[in-house]
């Protein structure tokens, strides 16, 4: 499904991603953890197609090269990135935005567009999933939303877009306990054999709700370690010091499934 090989990204000559390799199979959920500034969001944006990076290496989705595509074409190809910092768009109605987004990708794929009335049902289902109040649909996109509300709005968008690959960048940050559960169960509801997910997080707690198939540690723009969900527990206890120093102390918890 997603195949990333030796991906590098730099900004103004400063390397941020330094040869990232990752394969995500259909239906799999991968977690990426790593210290602040290690390049997690940069990776998400490199997949989404943000301007301003010098990019090298390969990233393909179902064999299709993503790196030469515009962001909207990547969305049409099935890429969805939930932003760590969702953007406020004053004056653009959330419902109109969602329908425009969905119909844009449908049009790009040669599918028929969905009318306003039918879309209401689509939106309602997505709203129920994230337990969002209806008035959010009638407000401007993220404008004045609280931090947690913005994150829920990202999941709402994912539910409407039904992407093939979802990359969720710290969607759990800033959520209260109930919201975390709601967002996690929303994510779980959207898990499917056809859909792959990359969940970027700092907290092991999210991974208790969303059991990932693999956990990767991203340090200095590279994946330095990979394992199963127990790797997250190890990180919770020990932090990243081991990986930053590029050596592993004897773990108190066994590193089952670790790739090193």
């Amino acid at each position: 499904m997603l195949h990333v090989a030796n991906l590098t990204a730099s900004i103004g000559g400063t390397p941020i991603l330094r040869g990232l390799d990752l394969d995500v199979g259909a239906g799999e959920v991968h977690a990426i953890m790593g210290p602040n500034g290690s390049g997690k969001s940069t990776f998400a944006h490199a997949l989404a197609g943000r301007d301003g990076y010098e990019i090298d290496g390969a990233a393909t989705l179902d064999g299709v090269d993503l790196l030469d595509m515009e962001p909207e074409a990547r969305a049409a190809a099935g890429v969805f990135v939930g932003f760590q910092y969702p953007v406020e768009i004053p004056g653009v109605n959330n419902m109109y935005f969602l329908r425009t987004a969905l119909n844009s990708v449908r049009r790009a794929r040669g599918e028929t567009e969905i009318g306003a009335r039918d879309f209401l049902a689509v939106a309602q289902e997505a709203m129920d999933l994230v337990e969002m109040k209806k008035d959010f649909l009638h407000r401007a996109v993220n404008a004045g939303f609280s931090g947690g509300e913005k994150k829920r709005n990202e999941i709402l968008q994912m539910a409407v877009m039904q992407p093939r690959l979802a990359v969720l960048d710290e969607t759990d940050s800033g959520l209260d306990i109930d919201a975390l559960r709601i967002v996690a169960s929303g994510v779980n509801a959207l898990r499917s054999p056809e859909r792959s997910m990359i969940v970027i997080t700092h907290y092991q707690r999210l991974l208790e709700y969303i059991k990932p198939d693999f956990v990767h540690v991203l340090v200095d723009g590279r994946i330095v370690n990979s394992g199963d969900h127990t790797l997250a527990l190890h990180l919770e206890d020990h932090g990243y010091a081991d990986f930053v120093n590029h050596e592993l102390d004897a773990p108190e918890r066994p590193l089952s499934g670790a790739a090193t």
Partner: protein
Amino acid sequence: MTTVAPTSPIEYPTRHDERWRYAPHDLLGRLSFGPPSASADKIPGPIGAQIPALDGPLIVIVNGVVDERWSNLTAIPDGLRLSTLADASADPAVPVVAHFNPDVDGAADVFMALNTTFGVDGAFVDVAEGQKLDAPIHIVDVAIPDETSNTSCTGVVIHLGADSSATIVETRLGGSEAFGGSNTRTTITLDDHSTLEHIVLQDMPSTQVHLGRVEVTQHAGSALRARSFNLGAIYGRLAYDVHLAGAGAHTDLSGLYYGAGEQTLDQQITVIHTAKDCTSRQSYRGVLDDESAGVFNGGIDVRPGADGTDAEQHNDNLLLSNRAEANTQPRLEILADDVACKHGATVGQLDANAMYYLRTRGIPAADARRLLVNAFADQAVDDIGIDAVRTWVRDRLGTPDA
């Protein structure tokens, strides 16, 4: 050619004149003026498609003369006098409200003088005391440059009696692509506690010049809601001079200018407070593409004795090209006590983060851009109270109802 040389003491404006700083002086010098020319058969075809379809009286003025063929003056409600300005001026029983407003200092210019000389016809609207009119009155001005003079002059005089209310839409168009333009002057008098919604839609061809003035005198407790859409013309100028002369009057002026190509769209707004406890709001938005220029020159003039004034002014500009420019100039003069006065101006570009965010949701760049421009412009479009006008503006801007 019956061009009138600028008569003394008024001179053609120059670049040194603050209010004419960004005007294309070469083009202004090529405008020629003369007495109104008969309009019969000037309009090539129906103008219905070019104007909002309003449900109410319609008066169409072609080259400064009312054209009965296109006008609809059949369903005039009681308490409304709607006629040609020429008829009203000729009728001794009609107290035509002073065309000149001596209280508005410093605003006179040569084009106003030319309008006074040649803009003898046009529309006259008089709403009787206590009369509340439901249907909007539509005044359409069409300029068709001809050989004798390429610029038409039109006068519009509006008087609202005490406690009356009305809605008036003025649409300004050009009937050919030839160089020339129109010079319109609207004089509005609002008696005590009357309420007027006044909308100007300026959509002249991009080969022409529009010089529009609106002069308002507001008496005690009256309220004006003025909306302007400055969209067409190579140079589109809308000047408002509002004099708050009676205590507790309220004026709310807002507008959108949306330029492309080589247009210059100029708003010259002055609110003069001379009475106590009046409020004024100015809120103008500009969207400027290509090599277009926007001008907002906004004055708040609080004269001695206008205590308790509450005045605000905002101007926000969105530049869609790096060759477009916005010129914004507040003029504040406050000579009274207990005055609340706020003003602010912004000039920005499309938010690159918002563009990116929309595109990651599959929305193509061109659509994303349109969405963001609409969101910016909509602040001005959204609060148009008349559906047909809102639809007309949206169609004109290519922005569908969201």
